[in-house]
């Protein structure tokens, strides 16, 4: 039972001052085992804050990040799943499923987590899953101003993943979940 937090596109301080208070009250240290962050934090303070939630932090570089040494893409294996991480501004057209699928095949992962569009999406596509956790602060994006703060928490348990989607709609936190199962095992390495 591994809990993985996926979030990104916070754009602190340029576009948003901080995470919403309701999100912050829920995110306490000790519960989450990994954090994957799609990028655009943008400053070190946010990095430090995430580090306090969980020591295992993975970040991919977004175009506005002030830390230049984050990698463009990252892959990691958690349990039976291979996860891929990329900010998404490199994949054109932005948010296009087929292009993202191309990236997924390139990275050879089961779950691809990208951001940049600031909209939550979760798609099953050609044998893998593409998840976009949206913007955790609700910052405006290059595409739209109408953004709800959202992030994603994945509960990886064997071959099954339960994805909990946290969205702040009209000041209230709404939680949904998505279930999916992997059909074959991956070789551990």
């Amino acid at each position, binding site marked *: 039972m591994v809990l993985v937090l996926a979030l990104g596109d916070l754009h602190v301080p340029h576009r948003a001052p901080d995470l919403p208070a309701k999100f912050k009250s829920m*995110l306490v240290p000790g519960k989450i085992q990994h954090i994957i962050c799609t990028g655009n934090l943008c400053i070190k303070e946010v990095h430090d804050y995430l580090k306090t939630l969980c020591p295992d932090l993975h970040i991919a570089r977004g175009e506005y990040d002030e830390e230049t040494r984050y990698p463009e893409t990252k892959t990691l294996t958690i349990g039976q799943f291979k996860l891929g991480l990329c900010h998404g501004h490199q994949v054109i057209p932005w948010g296009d499923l087929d292009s993202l699928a191309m990236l997924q095949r390139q990275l050879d992962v089961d779950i691809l987590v990208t951001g940049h569009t600031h909209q939550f*999406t979760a798609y099953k596509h*050609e044998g893998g899953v593409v998840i976009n956790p949206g913007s955790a602060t609700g910052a405006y994006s290059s595409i739209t101003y109408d953004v709800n703060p959202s992030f994603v928490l994945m509960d990886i348990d064997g071959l099954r993943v339960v994805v909990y989607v946290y969205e702040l709609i009209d000041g209230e936190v709404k939680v949904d979940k998505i279930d999916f199962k992997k059909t074959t095992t991956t070789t551990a390495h």
Partner: protein
Amino acid sequence: MLKSKLKIPDKTRKPFPDRLGSLVAGFDSRDGENGGSGAALEFGEELETIQPNGFGSDREFEEPDDGVEEECAQDEDAAGGAGGGEPDLRARQRPNTREGSGPVSVLEVIAADEKRSDVEHEISQEEINLEKLQRIATMGLPDEGGLRATSWKLLLGYLPPSRKLWEKELSENRLKYAKLKEDLLISPSEFARRKNLNSGPCETEAGSDVDGPLRRHQIAQEDHPLSLGKASVWNQYFENTEVAEQIDRDLQRTHPDMKFFSGETVISRRHREAMRNILLLFAKLNPAIRYVQGMNEVLAPIYYVFSTDPNEQNAANAEADSFSCFVRLLGDSVDHFCQQLDNSSVGILSTISRLSELLKTNDEELWRHLEFTTRVEPQFYAFRWITLLLTQEFSFQSILRIWDSLLGNPFGVQDMLLRVCCAMLLCVKSKLLRGDFIANLKLLQHYPDINIEHLLQVAMDLTPDTSSYRLSL
């Protein structure tokens, strides 16, 4: 199990004040309680002329459990040979210079066999006479054949005295335990999955070949991992991780010298996991006390004895049996662990003062010396003795022997426990009288190895403290 408290067991109906003198001299004129002790007593006397240090059973268990078999044999002959023909004072005053014993003699082996057959006979009855079993247990139970395991289960009341009910009781209890585990120790994801299965098959499972947006499902309000609500399964799970972590830490430190408990082998891991489940379950079922450091030590002998039962079915269910017996054993002393009750009449301080009174009744000189002259308050040493049922003071094998007596006492574990504690003080009386605060404290907190049979004998012969008897419990 407690009959009228005023009944004084036969064993102590010897002249009281003289006992103290005889304790000091170390000579014990007690007759053996078992049959065949006459021969053994002569044997003891005979040996005493040859080995003035007292014979073989004197030898203390100074090394840890590497020599378990050897110690077993020693324990056997000590148990079987009429309490081990008493060491005299001279032997005790040279604490660590025990010579090696002579070879285990035929008579000792015979005595051990006799004891084993006594127990076997008793246990194999259709209706077991608990009193008789208690008496036998007080003399010490044999180590092999799973006899100790069965006896302990009977003495703790886990198994009913009527043999035909055993099957039923055991399977019922084991089933209950399994269900408890399932209800309380389940991980939240497992819980969520089961709920999912119950509330209808999931479409996404079936439609795994269909591409497209994944469907979002509603969830009950509190049912997500970050929920802070009290009723949430997840929240409770995370609250318990703290307790679980402490239990884990303590388990790592349980008996590090024994392969059974420590090390990274599959077996020891499995044992630790079983103990972890038991302690976690106990903590959850008793939110008032939860887990207190030291409970792992009380659990260890029980779990060890039950897992090393040669009967395979029993050994496989050791976890379930240990849980029930652990709960029963702690039933009397659970108040000792509750901090709020410290000063009340059932708390640890009251028990400690009962120990003090017992010492005063039996040996006022020593009591005075400890309380006033050297100011060694019983809290400093007796707290650990009492709450942990002496598991930290002696070697593992000795603990098993002492627990035989504790469980076999018709007046209950606590009563015998106080007696043994008092006996511990009496047995090192001369050193205590000579020492000051620091020396005494050091001595009592690192209790020296002594002959366990002698200790238990002294304990049984103590005058009970009648000044503060509670007629009703």
